[in-house]
């Protein structure tokens, strides 16, 4: 069974939650409605034909011009070798997604990173707090409109350009 077949079956089962187009490439890509990402992932992991037992990557991308934050889920199956990318686009002012950490435990940390650096909130996450930045950091650094604060705990983040004589 190849990815196109998996995609077809998914659409049969879930309808419009999964987008009709599948961008076929090395890691074929299809869009998924954000609120149902957990449902889709559960089906993909539990069905024996797809058996996506590994979440290889979870990345958040800030599409400022489209006013969305897209979260890419790269799924991999060690049993069959299938590779699939799911893309969930959430509105930029208030990006919320259901968590998949109950499906793949590694999603716990990957979602924390997405929250920390991009501000995507994951409902149902057991412990959503910052992971890379300090706990009291304000803002989400990887956003396109992120402005560095003037100082952090009294240490200035600005300095004279070293190139000036």
């Amino acid at each position, binding site marked *: 069974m190849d990815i196109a077949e998996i995609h077809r079956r998914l659409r049969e089962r879930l309808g419009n939650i999964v987008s009709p187009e599948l961008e076929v490439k*090395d*890691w074929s*890509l299809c869009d998924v409605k954000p609120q149902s990402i957990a449902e889709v992932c559960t089906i993909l992991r539990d069905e024996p034909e797809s058996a996506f*037992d*590994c*979440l*290889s*990557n979870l*990345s958040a*991308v*800030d599409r400022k011009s489209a006013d969305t934050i897209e979260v*890419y889920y*790269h799924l991999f199956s*060690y049993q069959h*070798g299938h590779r699939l*990318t799911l893309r969930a686009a959430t509105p930029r002012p208030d990006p919320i997604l259901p968590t998949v950490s109950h499906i*793949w*435990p*590694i999603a*716990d*940390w*990957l979602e924390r990173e997405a929250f920390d*650096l991009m501000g995507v909130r994951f409902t149902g996450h057991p*412990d959503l*707090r*910052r*992971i*890379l*930045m*300090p*706990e009291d950091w304000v803002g989400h*650094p*990887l956003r396109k409109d992120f402005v560095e604060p003037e100082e952090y705990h009294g240490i200035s983040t600005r300095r004279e350009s070293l190139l000036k004589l």
Partner: protein
Amino acid sequence: MNADAIDLDVRRETSRGLETEEMTLNMGPQHPSTHGVLRFVVKADGEVMRRAIPDIGYLHRSIEKIAEKVGYHGFMPYTDRVDYVSAMQCNQGWAMACEKLAGIEVPRKGEYCRVIACEFGRLASHLLSVGATGMDIGAVTPFTHAIREREYINDILEELCGARLTFNYMRIGGCAWDLPPGFVGRAVKFLDRFEPLIDEYNELISFNKIYVERLANVAVVSREMAIAWNLVGPNLRGSGVKYDVRKDAPYSVYPEFEFDVPVGTGERGTLGDSYDRYMVRMREMEESCKILRQALAGVPEGPVVAKVARMFKPPAGEVYVRVEASRGDMGWFVVSDGSAFPYRVHIRTGSFAAMAIIEELSKGLMIADLVAVIATLDIVAPEVDR
């Protein structure tokens, strides 16, 4: 560390009605282990741990954000710092991602140079890893011997690109410089000296009874757990999953080489314990030597780098490329918007998952074992934090 997030000093009643207290210890960012700036909040009941909660972010250098500012070519030196213990493979990952975005083909000699550099990098990284594992367990001598061999490898790679740690050897489209004259001879001479030494290390330390006692049956990671937690590389293979990106999703010229993928067998304890992970690394060194010999024997003629525009503007799109780095498959997710600067770069590294699984593994382990587990999972802080 947010104090509300962890219960501090939980009082428990033992079965005999004695009140005991859990100790909260801080295995702080500074400690004499070679794995970098890592911090654990250890909640221990005497010598036995209840949980070891990792606290990462001390080495976060916002490399991914910097990529959006320096452009595709300019990012290459930064990729060295993603995993500075084995920097060649990180270079390769970035170069492959950019080449895939733009559809560039690397000339054959360039691919051979890349394989040679990557495998030497893998040797160096595994040497450091097994040496540091020995040192954390208490045997300080194998570390010095491993570093001695690593110094020779550093000398060889210095010949190749001028640097000993952060190489910046590869470019988008190939490698920066050709192999210097006489390089192949010297490299083969090194391999002739090095391969018997792997047996010597095994005799010295791997089969030592105390060493085996310290590592066997410690922190057993089952197959399902390893896959669910996205462990990769020697950690995954130590749990019995025979998966290597070089063989199962091959890239570069790896299909042309014959080598085996060592898998943990539970020889001295349970399958998936720390000893398996350690032995997989020792055996991988032998396999890397095999690949190197084949590559050095068959280096073709030709250019080492394809012509790539100075203002590299790949078409818009996204790509997810995996390379088999020393610590497992490193995923490079690059999003391009058609301009000369990457729109988003995300590096998913093997040590990130290894750090994540430590909290799960630490239940019931002893504090002395925590160090062994960190060492055998081969965690380097720059990979975790980027």
